[in-house]
């Protein structure tokens, strides 16, 4: 699905789409992402009325309900500024699947224009902000997990790695089966719990085997799943949002 994107020049203002999971479970990641964006000189506009991209309804087969949600969200971002999404899978929903949901409808054109403005955080930081990171943190090791949508719909697993690769004191460890799904898949984990369990157990095992100090991901859906499993197993490893990790490396206080 991933096609080559043409990136715009650095804008003056951007919207941030934090996603419902960041809003509810990890608001600090949202704040950190906003601060990180602000350090690049862009003005960040946070629309407090935003809620969820509609992906749960869409992936359950309820297209009409997903459309209701999608239309309400798109209406909140009327200015032609980029919409920066803090998750590959919500980014995939808003960049790709909105097009499919509204294909052939009266909204088709305006929806496509909106979809063109949607960027996942790391791709925006790399390709538009051309962010250069100066690592001020102590030496550490991390392992990266990218969501399937980040990888296959948005092609941004590359940009997440690029950002981590800029940090001189951070050793990026490789896990076995890196590209394999963690087993979340939204309602999949509830509809098919046994299969999901097998998947997340394998994923956590491979992550722990790297003996990295920190797990990093730019997707709170995966982290909800993986962190929950790690905690259940009593593992010390925990995942944090990439934005929070990057920001922590730039600030002297952690050095």
């Amino acid at each position: 699905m991933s096609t080559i994107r043409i990136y715009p020049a650095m804008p003056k203002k951007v919207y941030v789409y934090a996603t419902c999971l960041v809003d509810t479970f990890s608001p600090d990641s949202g704040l950190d992402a906003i601060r990180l964006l602000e350090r690049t000189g862009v003005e960040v506009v946070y629309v407090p009325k935003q809620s969820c991209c509609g992906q749960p309804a869409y992936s359950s087969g309820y297209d009409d309900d997903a459309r209701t949600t999608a239309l309400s969200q798109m209406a909140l971002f009327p200015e032609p500024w980029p919409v920066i999404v803090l998750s590959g899978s919500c980014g995939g929903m808003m960049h790709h699947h909105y097009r499919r949901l509204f294909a052939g409808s009266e909204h088709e054109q305006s929806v496509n224009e909106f979809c063109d403005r949607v960027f996942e955080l790391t791709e925006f930081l790399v390709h538009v902000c051309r962010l250069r990171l100066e690592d001020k943190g102590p030496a550490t090791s991390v392992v990266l997990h990218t969501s399937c949508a980040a990888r296959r719909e948005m092609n941004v697993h590359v940009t997440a790695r690029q950002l981590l690769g800029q940090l001189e004191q951070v050793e990026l460890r490789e896990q076995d089966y890196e590209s394999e799904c963690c087993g979340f898949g939204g309602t999949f984990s509830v509809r098919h719990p046994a299969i999901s369990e097998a998947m997340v157990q394998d994923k956590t095992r491979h992550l722990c085997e790297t003996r990295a100090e920190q797990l990093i991901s730019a997707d709170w859906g995966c982290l909800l799943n993986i962190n929950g499993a790690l905690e259940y197993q009593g593992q010390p490893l925990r995942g944090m949002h990439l934005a929070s990790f990057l920001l922590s490396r730039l600030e002297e206080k952690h050095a």
Partner: protein
Amino acid sequence: MHNRPQHFHAQAETALANAELRANFRGAMDYLRDKRKTAFADADEERTIRDRAEAIRQRCLSKLPELLEQLESNCIANGIRVHWAENADQANAIFTDIIQSHGGTLAVKGKSMVSEEIELNHAMEKEGITCLESDMGEYIVQLGQETPSHIIMPAIHKNKRQVAELFTEHVPGFQHTLDVDTLIQTGRNVLREKYRTADVGVSGVNFAVAETGTLCLVENEGNGRMCTTVPEVHIAITGIEKVVEFLADVPPLFSALTRSATGQLVTTYFNMISGPRKENELDGPKEVHLVLLDNGRSQAFADEEMRKTLQCIRCGACMNHCPVYTRIGGHAYGTVYPGPIGKIISPHLMGLEATQDLPTASSLCGACGEVCPVRIPIPELLQRLRHEAKQDPKPGTAPMRGQKAAASNAEAFVWRSFALITSRPVLYRMLTWCATRFRRLIPNKLGPWTRCRTAPKPAARTLRELMAERNK
């Protein structure tokens, strides 16, 4: 052992609990993934091969009815007798008629998933005809009275110890060994004798060429060649979607197929069957029949989006890369075609009533679409099927068997509420406010989620609240 898609959940749980089965699958899938990766070492070449394969399949499907007619007339001109079957019963009746008209009692069969689809062996048995599988994997599966668990590697769920046990039980004179070469030789010796004595040879078809009336058969063991040349009568069966327009369409598809399936650049055998034995020829069958099976394919064909399902060239790469298939194996699906392709084709063959759990049994990770050599958008089609299983058909689309079969008022209510809450900021604010304020009241047990994870804990304040404070 007869699994059904209706019992998918239970079958999946049984498979997951079987450590040996899981190890067999993981090992086999790792092997096949590596083979494919080596065969597609060059990304540009891979893109070119997939571009061509996709374009050929789409072109051929776009003129499927005409190509089928052309195939029929060219086959007839070559001396091949063509039969049309709308469903499994009709196809089996055609087989019975042909075999019985020759007084036949033994058929040898090369690997054919379509013959599994119509349960040919079973149907022939009822008529007193033995249908012996001659592909090594199929032979093993048949000995174990099982069905194939993979479309390319039918016995991939078994390791050599399990095969040796089967041979000990069923092959007279077999001396127990774990030596793979000896195991293969054992099977071969049994089969050689059967080719010689069989009345009829049965095969599938990988590509049926409309332009020339040629049936192409891709294989590695030579059993396909034996089945289609040694017995006096050869009956080939294929789904109607396997037709291609030109002979020149075959090499690109062949290349895409073998690289994706087994990581081979070419296979050991590639058979082109263009008719029965001619006068003065020394070998080949005296009669060749072709059975063209619909069995739900025209339903997929009628819908432009679903039609992409029929692009499939049966390489099995989607299975090999699917995290779900890798863990539960093929039998758990209870369908002839398992894995991602099975999830999108089975609803057409069996109806959505029977198969409604299959399209949901995917995390939509996209690994299947990423490797499909003909670029079937499997995740999108799964999405579409989920929709069709829940709701009335989209106006203007062709009806599908079992549409709305999985509709549930309770679930519809949940998603209507979801849409309401997410589209009304006041409601969403209230909900997240409650979730964060009463987070300590969230129970530790949250149904299926907490069977392997702790319950998720909302933060003390939502981002919206933190931002409001920040902007003060």
